[in-house]
C-alpha cells in the first residue's frame, strides 16, 4: 500500500530525513518510535503534504501513485489521514459543518454520493459515541477551547468518519491520561481492518499496550535503524534509545 524509498527531506536547508525506507502492506499496524528530533513528525507531515519541507531525493508510492506530487486534499481523498499532534483551533468554523464538508469532499473524490444532512447526523452521532466525545462539542468551533483530550478525540472522530486507507497518528497519545488513552485506543482498534493500515508515531511504549502493532520501527537521525515486532518496543522501554543511537552511529 505505502512504499517509501530513500526519502531525503530538508527543513530550511537542514537535513531531517536522510534516506528513510518503509514498506507498509494493507491491514498492517506499524509503530514508529524514536527520540526527539529524529524526524518522526516530519515523516507524518511529508506524507500528508504539508508545506515547508524540501524533498531532495527518494519517492513515496501510495497504491502505485506518486504521493509527493499531490496536494494535501488530493491525498486525503485517496484515503490518507493524519491525526495531528497539535490539532489547530478554527474559531468560527463549526465542527459539524467542517466535518460534513470534509466527508463530502472525500466522498466526491472517491466517486461516492454526498451524504445528506440526516444520514450525516446519524453517522456523526454514532461515531462520536465510539470516541466518547461530548455531542455539544460538535456544535462548537473546531477545537476552539477544547481540552487536550477533547482535541484528540475529535481527531479520532474525524478518522472514523472519513474511513481512510492509511491513518497516520502523530503522537496521538501525548498529553492523555489513562482513561482518555483507553477510549482513543478503542476508537482506533475499532477501525482496524484488512484494508486499513495505520502508522502510530509515538515516544512511549504505553500506547502499544492498547494498540498492538504488527511492526515496530526505530527512527534515529532521519533513518530507520532497527525494525522488529512488539518486543522491540518493550526493549526500548527498558533500555531507552541510547544503545540504539550508539549502534547506529557505529
Amino acid at each position, binding site marked *: 500500500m505505502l512504499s517509501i524509498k530513500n526519502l531525503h527531506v530538508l527543513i530550511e536547508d537542514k537535513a531531517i530525513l536522510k534516506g528513510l525506507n518503509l514498506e507498509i502492506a494493507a491491514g498492517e499496524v506499524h509503530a514508529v518510535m524514536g527520540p526527539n528530533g529524529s524526524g518522526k513528525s516530519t515523516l507524518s507531515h511529508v506524507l500528508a*503534504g504539508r*508545506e515547508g519541507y524540501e524533498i531532495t531525493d527518494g519517492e513515496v508510492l501510495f497504491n502505485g501513485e506518486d504521493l509527493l506530487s499531490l496536494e494535501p*486534499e488530493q*491525498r*486525503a481523498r485517496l484515503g490518507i489521514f*493524519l491525526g495531528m499532534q497539535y*490539532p489547530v483551533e478554527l474559531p*468560527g468554523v463549526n465542527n459539524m459543518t467542517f466535518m460534513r*464538508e470534509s466527508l463530502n469532499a472525500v466522498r466526491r473524490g472517491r466517486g461516492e454520493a454526498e451524504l445528506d444532512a440526516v444520514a450525516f447526523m446519524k453517522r456523526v452521532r454514532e461515531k462520536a459515541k465510539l470516541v466518547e466525545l461530548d455531542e455539544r462539542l460538535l456544535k462548537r468551533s473546531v477545537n476552539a477551547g477544547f481540552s487536550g483530550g477533547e482535541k484528540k478525540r475529535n481527531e479520532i472522530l474525524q478518522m472514523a468518519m472519513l474511513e481512510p486507507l492509511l491513518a497516520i497518528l502523530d503522537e496521538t497519545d501525548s498529553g492523555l491520561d489513562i482513561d482518555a488513552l483507553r477510549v482513543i485506543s478503542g476508537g482506533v482498534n475499532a477501525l482496524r481492518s484488512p484494508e486499513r493500515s495505520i502508522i502510530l508515531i509515538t515516544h512511549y511504549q504505553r500506547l502499544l499496550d492498547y494498540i498492538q502493532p504488527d511492526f515496530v520501527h526505530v527512527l534515529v537521525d532521519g533513518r530507520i535503524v532497527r525494525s522488529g515486532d512488539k518486543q522491540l518496543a518493550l526493549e526500548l522501554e527498558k533500555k531507552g534509545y541510547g544503545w540504539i543511537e550508539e549502534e547506529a552511529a557505529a
Partner: protein
Amino acid sequence: MSTTVEAQRAWFEQAIDQAQGDLPGQDLDWLQQTRAHARRAIETLPVPNRKSEEWRYTAIEGLLKNSFQTPAGEADAARVLEAGDWLEPDYPAYRVIIVNGRCIVDASQTAGLPEGATVGSLRAALATDPELLGTWFGQAAAHTDHLFTALNTALINDGIFLHLKPGVVLDRPVEVVYLSLGQEQAPLTQPRNLVVLEKGASATLVERFIGPGNALYFHNGVTELALREGAILKHCRVQDESRNAYHLSSLYLTQDRNSLYQGTTLAFGGAWARTDYQAVFKEEGARCELGGLYTVGDRQLIDFHLDVRHSVPDCSSREQFKGILYGKGRGVFDGRILVEKQAQHSDAHLSNDNLLLTENGEIDTKPQLEIYADDVKCSHGTTVGQIDPQQMFYLRSRGIDADAARRMLCLGFAGEVIEAIEVPELREYASQRLVATLNQSIQAAE
C-alpha cells in the same frame, strides 16, 4: 492651496443652491432655522483634508471631482419595482422604500403597524406631525462640526421617521431600502432619518443601501437615533452600494437610562464608503454594542469612524469590527472611546481585526481609548494578519480544497459579527454575500 479649498467649498455651496426649490416644511420656523444654520456652517467649517485626523486616510478629492445633482421630485414607483431583484432576501417586515433620497409610498408597505407606532416618510411627517419632529430634530446632530452632515441638514427633505410611543414593541422588523438609481446627472441622495423610541419601546430596524449596476451617485445620509429609558433598538445595516458609488452614513445616537442599542453594519459595496458613528450616553445603565464587517477589494475604500462617549457612570459599550481585504482594497478604522471624569464604572471594549488576503491590501487602523475616570474596565485591541497556513493545512488534510478552506476560514473570522444579526435571512444573506466576494477575490487573483 487656497484656491483648491475655495473650489471645494464652492462644490458644497453649488450642491445646496441647485436644490433649494423643492424643500418641504418651509413654513416651519425651527426647520428653516436648522437649515439656515447648516448653510452658514458650510461657509465657515474647514473643508476636510488629509491634515485633519478624521480624514487623514480618506481623501475627498475624488468625490469632489464629480458633480452631483439632487434629483427633483419622486422617482417613478413602476420604474423602482422593475429595477431588479434588489428586494432579496425577502422576509416579513414593515418596509419603506426610499429612491434617490425620496420615500416611495406606493412601493412601501407599513400596513398593520401597532397603535403608537409611526413608520414612514419624514416629508409626510413634517406635514402631519411637525411638533413631534421639532422636539427631536437636530438634537443629536445639532452641534456637529461635520461638513457633510451640514450639507445634509441644509437640504433636509425626506427620509424615514420612526417613532414608537412608550411601551410599543414591534412584532416585525422595519426594513428601509435605500435604492439609488443612476441617471444622466449623477444623483446626490441625502436621506435624513429620525428614529425615536420612547420609554420601554422596542424595535428591529434594518437598513439596506443598494445601487444596481455601476451607477455613479453620492449617498450622504444622516440618521439621528434617540433611545429613551429602557428602549431597545436592534439595528442592522447592509451597505451594498454600486461599485462606482460614494457613500457616507453619519449616525448620531443618544441613549437614556438602561436603554440598549445593538448595531451591526455590513459594508460590502461602494468605491468610497464611510460610516461615522457618534454615540452618547446621557443617563446611567445604558449599553451600546457596535459591530461591523467590511470586505474591501480593488478600487475600493471602506472607512469606519466611531466616537463613543461615556459621559455618565455605569454604561457599557462593545465595539467589534472585522475586515477582510483583498486585491488593492483599502480599509480605514478609527475607533475612539472617551470616558469622561465622572463616568465611573464604565465598561468599554473595542476591537478591530483584519485579514489581508493579498499583499497589496491596506488597512489603517487606530483604536483610541481616552480615559479620565479612575474606576473603569476598558480595553482595546487591533490585529492585522493573514490566513494561518496551519489552519489551511488542517482543512486541506481533511480533503477540503484550498479555495473552500479559505472561504471557511474567512467565514469563521467574520462569524462573530454575522451571528449578532437579529434577522436569520440577513445572516444567511451576509454569509452568501461574503462567499460571493471571496469567490471574486479568488478569481481576480488567478
